[in-house]
């Protein structure tokens, strides 16, 4: 950066963006040093920085305005402690393996259930659904830049065993060749949904991120009223005799249904 800003102020003065980034501590050390060098010789910009800093400080004070009622914190802690307790992840729970029904009748039944639920899933959101909000929150959390799943693997032989002992139920994953076209398993996480432990499977379909939540049907017999879409994301579900499966994504709904169908089919390999 030139050291003669006053000779050509139109070019050298700090832009509003640089000024804001400077007072917000968003510049790299080199950028910051360049700005400080400029300020050392430019009275006008120094005044602008001073004014902007004063406004920032005043905003911080005025914005910190609403104080919770004194009893709110005790209400909050009471509520938190009434929640099902989160236990450390490596639980040595005795999972009771649930053997899948392997009959031809089941295949027909599963297809029928999937079709019915998928059709229901097309309905638009009207009443807010807590479960839908939770699903969307968790899906959005997986999209955030810092989020990495606990298991990062495209191999079902890695992902499935990882859940053993961590979940009170088991499930099958389809082979890569049994997945719909351009659908890839990316990894998995352990999570909680509706206060139930759940497997979170992360897929991509044509570059779209997909979250699939699996929960045990025995502990939550019904899913309640799930909207088919929420805030632009499709939420479709399917059930098997043992499992609830809920998929959330912004991918084409038909592609999402193909993935759900593959997952349903995998529970009935025979």
């Amino acid at each position, binding site marked *: 950066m030139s050291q003669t800003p006053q000779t050509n102020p139109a070019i050298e003065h700090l832009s509003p963006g640089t000024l804001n980034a400077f007072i917000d501590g968003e510049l790299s050390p080199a950028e910051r040093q360049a700005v400080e060098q400029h300020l050392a010789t430019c009275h006008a910009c120094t005044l602008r920085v001073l*004014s902007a800093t004063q406004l920032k400080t005043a905003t911080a004070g005025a*914005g910190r*305005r*609403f*104080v919770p009622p004194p009893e*709110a914190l005790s209400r909050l802690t009471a509520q*938190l402690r009434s*929640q099902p307790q989160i236990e450390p992840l490596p639980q040595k729970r005795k999972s009771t393996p649930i053997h899948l029904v392997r009959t031809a009748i089941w295949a027909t039944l599963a297809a029928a259930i999937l079709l019915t639920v998928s059709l229901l899933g097309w309905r638009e959101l009207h009443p807010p659904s807590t479960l839908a909000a939770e699903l969307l929150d968790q899906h959005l959390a997986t999209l955030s830049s810092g989020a990495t799943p606990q298991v990062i693997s495209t191999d079902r032989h890695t992902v499935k065993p990882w859940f053993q002992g961590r979940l009170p139920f088991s499930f099958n994953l389809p082979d890569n060749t049994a997945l719909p076209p351009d659908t890839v398993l990316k990894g998995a996480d352990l999570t909680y949904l509706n206060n139930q432990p759940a497997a979170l499977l992360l897929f991509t379909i044509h570059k779209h991120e997909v979250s699939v939540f699996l929960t045990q049907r025995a502990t939550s017999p019904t899913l309640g009223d799930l909207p088919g879409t929420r805030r632009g994301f499709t939420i479709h579900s399917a059930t098997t005799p043992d499992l609830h499966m809920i998929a959330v994504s912004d991918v084409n709904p038909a592609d999402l249904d193909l993935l759900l169908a593959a997952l349903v089919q995998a529970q009935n390999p025979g």
Partner: protein
Amino acid sequence: MPSSRTEDFEQLALPLFPSLYNHAFWLTRNQAEAEDLAQETFTKSLRAFDSFQPGTNFKAWMFRILRNSFLTTRTGIAASRTVFLEDHPETLDTADRGPTPEDNLIRLDNQAALHAALEQLPPPLREALLLCDVEEIKYKDIANILDVPIGTVMSRISRARRTLRQLLQPQLGESL
């Protein structure tokens, strides 16, 4: 008795309660709704705590859950239906040259005027500005919380400050 995991959560999260409540109040403009929203945020965060990645910004994670929870409330749904035209690139930064020497004369010691000016800011501008100035959250984390590109965060903050200065200037003639 809380498990150690819940204790870990409480240790990290409870100190944020005043900040989350304050922000919830700015979003909902209602004491009961703000407390409900803050409580819902804590409940959801506790349930999702295992998915929080240690080493990432816990405060930003909580604020993101707060905002997503807000968007599912009646007030939030109504707010999200309001299209914020100011994000449109053609309306951005056409005349923003930052503070001018005259802006140095705005009265920042008048708390009532500042409160009134903050109230008058369009909610998307105010939200970005509060996350930056009050909560001291970095632009990239604000972008994550608001689910917008980082450039939009910078534009909103810049525009919010310019609007505040404009709103505060009329106080000059009245108060001097």
